[in-house]
């Protein structure tokens, strides 16, 4: 399989009434008027453009003739139906770790019904990571990071603030060891916000950690699932703590990250709620579940697509009103995008990124934790299943037949392997519902970034 075997491909799509064309291999993006968009919807036209034909295959109206001439020019310029330059097949960086997810607490002070982590315990015993296990994990990361300078550590759980002492100790240790080894650490901590008070609040607010705050949006949406062990809702306390934290932080380096489920398919209303509550850095993610009243189903897709369109409209309206906000999946880097090697290598789970449990067990990522077949080793014993690691390294967008053909291949890079395995039993066969949502998110991201670029061009011209 060589890259040049990936056929030239154009994906044309519409978001909120405007048409766009993405040239898959080059990453070129074009905004289209109605004549150009409707031409690209026609199979015989697409075939003729892809084959480099100079003359249209069918009679066209005068407006269509003009659009045809413009589209053929783009083909000649290499920004429509472009071939992929021949390059090596595989990711080019030598095997090396660059990130760990430290499960510092397999325990939680909430009992969220939809939690993929089994309400904190990941299907096993509840427990906290000792500082010794954490230090060994950080040593392991540094030792296996090769020439990579920038390393990342996520403090995750369960609820990591249940083991706050270890978090502080491990950050200090990583900085010291990183300094000695010439490595630079970036830290992320994901918290449900319940214990984000007092010393933890002080420490995190004055730190440079990226903090991810779990808050689902409207009170009734959040409290439907995110309850305390005795069953009470957590929204009021979490909202207050998160607002306090973000205010103390001066609004920097955080995300409010919510989950939407089948019970709030109108999730753009939750984005609007979070904006009104004062948060400007948001991520709302589809629940990961194959069953339960919260699980998303294929029949929900049309409604969810409408919601993403609505969210794209809200995103642009807020930007244009001088109140920009960040939505994680719309942060598409159009102009400073990653290299092809990166786009091929996917998320890095299982070879660049590993998760560590409180007992030091290693898994390909946080979502694989507890799936025994995927236990890869242990940081205390030092054993590591190199064969499984190689399997993850080689599972890239080219090895997945459905991904190889997909227009979104260089933006999603093969998708979430843990989700694929959960839903299809295979790392190679994508999770269809997740793919459909991913493609829609990418369309909306391309559309909003295109519109913002057009706004900027108009402002500069005007």
């Amino acid at each position, binding site marked *: 399989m060589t890259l040049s075997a990936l056929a030239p491909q154009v994906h044309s799509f519409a978001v909120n009434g405007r048409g766009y064309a993405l040239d898959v291999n*080059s*990453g*070129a*993006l*074009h*905004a*289209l*008027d109605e*004549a*150009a968009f409707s031409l690209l919807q026609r199979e015989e036209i697409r075939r003729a453009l892809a084959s480099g034909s100079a003359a249209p295959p069918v009679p066209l109206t005068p*407006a269509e003739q003009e*659009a045809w001439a*413009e589209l053929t020019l783009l083909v000649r310029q290499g*920004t429509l139906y472009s071939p992929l*330059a021949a*390059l090596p097949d595989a990711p*080019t*960086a030598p095997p090396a770790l*660059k*990130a760990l*997810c430290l499960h510092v607490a397999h325990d939680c002070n909430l009992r969220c019904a939809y939690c*993929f982590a089994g309400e904190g315990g990941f299907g096993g015993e509840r427990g906290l990571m000792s500082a010794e296990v954490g230090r060994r994990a950080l040593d392991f990361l540094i030792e296996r990071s090769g020439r*990579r*300078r*920038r390393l*990342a550590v996520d403090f*995750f759980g369960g609820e990591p603030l249940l083991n706050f002492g270890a978090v502080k100790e491990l950050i200090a240790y990583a900085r010291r060891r990183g300094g000695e080894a010439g490595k630079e650490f970036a830290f992320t901590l994901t918290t449900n916000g319940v214990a984000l008070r007092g010393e933890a609040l002080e420490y995190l607010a004055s730190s440079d950690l990226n903090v*991810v705050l779990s808050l689902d949006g409207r009170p009734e949406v959040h409290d439907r699932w995110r309850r305390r062990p005795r069953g009470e809702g957590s929204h009021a306390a979490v909202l207050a703590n998160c607002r306090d934290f973000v205010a103390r932080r001066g609004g920097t380096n955080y995300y409010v990250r919510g*989950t939407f489920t089948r019970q709030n398919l109108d999730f753009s209303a939750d984005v609007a709620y979070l904006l009104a509550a004062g948060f400007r850095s948001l*991520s709302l*993610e589809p629940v*990961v579940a194959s069953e339960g009243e919260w699980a998303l189903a294929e029949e929900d897709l049309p409604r969810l697509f409408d919601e993403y369109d609505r969210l794209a409209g809200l995103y642009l309206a807020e930007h244009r009103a001088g109140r920009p906000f960040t939505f*994680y999946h719309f*942060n598409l*880097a*159009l102009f*400073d*995008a*990653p*290299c*092809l*090697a*990166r786009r091929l*290598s996917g*998320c*890095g789970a299982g070879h*660049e*990124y590993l998760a560590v449990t409180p007992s030091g067990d290693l898994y390909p*990522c946080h979502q694989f934790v507890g799936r025994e077949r995927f236990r890869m080793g242990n940081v205390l014993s030092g054993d590591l299943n190199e064969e499984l690691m190689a399997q993850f390294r080689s599972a890239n967008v080219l090895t997945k037949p459905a991904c190889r053909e997909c227009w979104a291949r260089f933006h*999603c*890079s093969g*998708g*979430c392997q843990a989700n694929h395995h959960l839903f299809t039993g295979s790392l190679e066969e994508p999770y269809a519902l*997740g793919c459909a949502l*991913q493609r829609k*998110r*990418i369309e909306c991201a391309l559309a909003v970034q*295109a519109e913002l*670029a*057009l706004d900027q061009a108009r402002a500069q011209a005007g």
Partner: protein
Amino acid sequence: MKHVVTITTGNQPRAGGGCGECQNSCQSACKTSCTVGNQACEKK
């Protein structure tokens, strides 16, 4: 052009890519999905 506005001509792969210094895609704010297209290149 009258019917098409090019937003970006894309970035056909840069030679010497794959330094590996960019962030992992699932780290900062999703944890349940994967998007690589939004990871900015860190190669300076």
